[in-house]
């Protein structure tokens, strides 16, 4: 098995008494796009800056292509790490043109080679016409693409993206994150993205690490984070959903008030034990024929679908995503049915 491009092993980063990251471990193979996803203040940006070499670590180690670049009391400076970084504020060089910015890290190349590489990147990010402009003459989206091209130009082993979309308009983000993914894949780049936005993480990354309070909660694909969260934090943080009471019947069956859920369970529970069962909005479908009825408490129109907040007979609430031609009024009772092929449940907190 080839050596992963990046290995983070038990990294701890602390300022005096206060530790920002405690014991973080993960690895990223060549050509993969990873993402560190977490609420603000969770330590994800600090992790990225440790990987880049801007911050020292207090314990553990960081390896790039199998070579240690950070450990306690030892730090390879960022300029020797062959990493590229796209900053949150882009940090473009205001005294250089677009082409000058992209060429900035190509110092050792022959002149003709450099020009060819710059032209190549300009066409990849679609800014050939803007090559002589200065950063302040560009739109936010264009600036971001210059920052990306500048970071990619020296063909870094690992590309780090720090909240790269946060200063863009919300309606630009989905398209741009797909664009960026396409560029990264085309260049076969290995990259780590830091974001607090799930949609961005889902759109861009192959694998995602959910970080909370300086510790890794789960490292997995987007599908698994959503449907097989490893713990309550991930279940809560990713997607929408509610917890309802349940009783474990067998290894593969849990009974809740809406019926019996069957399927693969992420963990094993003692038969007969009481658990909290996660219900996603897509686990409950609207079915007029169903004998199970729930009262509409609230509704949010989302275009193709309506997200209903429902009051179950027991009084607990649940969410259901329904095609939007099923338009029901608040207070109305509608028929619902369970439709889930797996179980996400957690033992009740003591």
């Amino acid at each position: 098995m080839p050596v992963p491009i990046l290995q983070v092993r038990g990294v701890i980063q602390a300022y005096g008494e206060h530790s920002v990251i405690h014991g973080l471990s993960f690895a990223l193979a060549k050509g993969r796009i990873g993402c560190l996803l977490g609420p603000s203040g969770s330590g994800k940006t600090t992790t990225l800056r440790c990987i880049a070499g801007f911050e020292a670590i207090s314990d553990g180690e960081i390896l790039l292509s199998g070579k240690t670049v950070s450990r306690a009391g030892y730090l390879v400076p960022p300029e020797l790490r062959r990493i590229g970084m796209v900053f949150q504020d882009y940090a473009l060089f205001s005294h250089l043109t677009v082409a000058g910015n992209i060429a900035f890290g190509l110092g050792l190349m022959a002149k003709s080679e450099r020009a060819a590489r710059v032209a190549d990147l300009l066409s990849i990010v679609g800014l050939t016409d803007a090559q002589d402009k200065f950063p302040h003459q560009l739109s936010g989206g264009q600036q971001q693409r210059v920052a990306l091209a500048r970071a990619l130009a020296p063909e870094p082993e690992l590309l780090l993206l720090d909240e790269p979309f946060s200063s863009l308009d919300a309606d630009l983000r989905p398209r741009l994150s797909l664009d960026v993914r396409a560029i990264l894949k085309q260049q076969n780049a290995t990259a780590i993205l830091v974001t607090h936005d799930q949609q961005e993480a889902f759109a861009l990354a192959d694998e995602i690490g959910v970080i909370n309070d300086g510790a890794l909660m789960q490292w997995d694909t987007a599908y698994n984070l959503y449907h097989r969260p490893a713990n309550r934090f991930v279940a809560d943080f990713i997607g929408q959903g509610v917890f309802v009471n349940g009783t474990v019947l067998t290894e593969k069956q849990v009974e809740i008030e809406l019926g019996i859920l069957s399927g693969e369970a992420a963990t094993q529970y003692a038969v007969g034990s009481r658990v909290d069962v996660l219900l996603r909005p897509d686990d409950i479908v609207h079915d007029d024929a169903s004998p199970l009825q729930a009262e509409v408490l609230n509704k949010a129109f989302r275009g193709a679908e309506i997200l209903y907040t429902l009051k179950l007979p027991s009084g607990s609430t649940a969410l259901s995503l329904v095609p939007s031609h099923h338009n029901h009024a608040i207070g109305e009772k509608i028929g619902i049915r369970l439709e889930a092929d797996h179980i996400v449940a957690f033992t009740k907190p003591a």
Partner: protein
Amino acid sequence: METSTARAPTAGAFIFSRTRSNSSGWRLAVLLTALLLAVPVLVVFSAFLSPERDIWNHLLEFVLPDLFVNTLWLVIGVGAGTALLGVSLAWLTALYDFPGRGFFSWALLLPLAVPSYVTAFVSIGLLDFAGPLQTWLREIFGGQIWFPPIRSTGGVIAVMTLALYPYVYLLSRNAFLSQGKRTLEVAQSLGLSRSQGLFRAALPMARPWIAGGLLLVFMETLADFGAVAAFNYDTFTTAIYKTWFGMFSLSAAAQLASILIVMVFVIVLIEQHLRAEVRYTETGKAGRQTRFALRGTRRWLASFYAALVLSAGFIVPVIQLLMWSSEASVDAFDPRTLQYLWRSLALGGIAAVLTGAVALVLVYANRRQTDVTTRAAIRFATFGYAVPGAVLGVGIFIPVAWLDAQLSVFAKTILGIDASQVLQGTVLVMLLAYLVRFLAVSFNPLDAAMQRITPSTEEAARSLGLDSKRVLWRVHLPILRSGLFSGAILVFVDVMKEMPITLMTRPFGWDTLAVRIFEMTSEGQWERAAPPAVALVLAGLLPIIWLNRHAEKC
């Protein structure tokens, strides 16, 4: 790639030790710079703390009462005058459309190009009894007409107001522009008339900026030497000069200087306090500016008012200077003028490079060293702009004379040579004084440029493979260039215009343009003072043109 990671361990170990050893060098440089200002200030202060009784009694009885009354009137008068002109013109050009608004909004800064002592002697020459205006009036109306005497308290106040109002104008204009029309519209939407809106919303909001401009005016007024000297209006600066060079009492001069510096420091303290307030009330740019239209005769009244101020503060003095200069050069061109010009240019140039280099060190130290001592030392080192030139002249001369005495003892006893006055009256001492006085002028634009280089800009360069030395050459210097250049232009012009330090510390007989103007003015020879004044005005236009072009680009 392989090689660079293989090299990494040594390089990594290196980086820690290097940052540590560097830091003490930065701190030392900053502390030395701060010491340059601290010594003269402390020398002057010590005169305040340990007054010599008989000198003090003499000053108290015969000198100080007049000085205090004169200074008080001057500060009050110039303060009121500049506030009135500066705020009203800023208000008009920021918020109203009238013919020539675009032109006036930058042209109203032009009086800054004319040193106040030039405005002063031109006004005296033009409006005095024997001057062209009164002569002309007498020819028309014959014999007895009454004309307000120009050599009066009112005259000095009027002249200094015309020379200094641009400070208030510039700052309050910024405030009004950033408030925008919006503030007034909000006031109007809440039922206030436009003029009520001005007094209840716009002016109170702009207060910290207006006050900031006024404090600059106060500092300049207290520090002014040339204009009050031309009017023979005694203030502390002229009194310092006269007691030193007229009565040859350096200790009395130091005593006077100590009183002046205490007054200036009070103003500096208020200014620092205000700056914090400005930071809190920053309103931000209000997007694209739209202005109210003025109608009918009012729009022409606005143009007329702006034109009147501009004429009095710039156009008329410049025309008069050019007329005198052409008369003077037709009569007999004084070849020494070229020598004065050369000296002024050289002094300005060397001082600009010197302060620029020192400012660069301070700006770097400011970024690198975040400890309290360094920060405080940097702030202190840039306070020199507040110390009046006359005070600095005294404060630098005393320690230099002391050092000379030590050196001459040393030379006599150890080397057996007769050497008095090794340092006194050398260009070196002059340059040192300029450095202390104008360091802030270089430092501020440079510091502003440095603020624009965010930490992530540096990190971006590092992540692209540059070590810190190459980051300096390829990122910092190119971005700092414009700040460095605008600082250099300002220092260059300030040094050329500088009068009291130059008078007090120059090598014997080593005259510059400013010194020449002082001498010709004190003899009432306006025509011969005019050519050097024209040179100074031309130089003074440089930074205004530069600032204006710069402002358009952003």
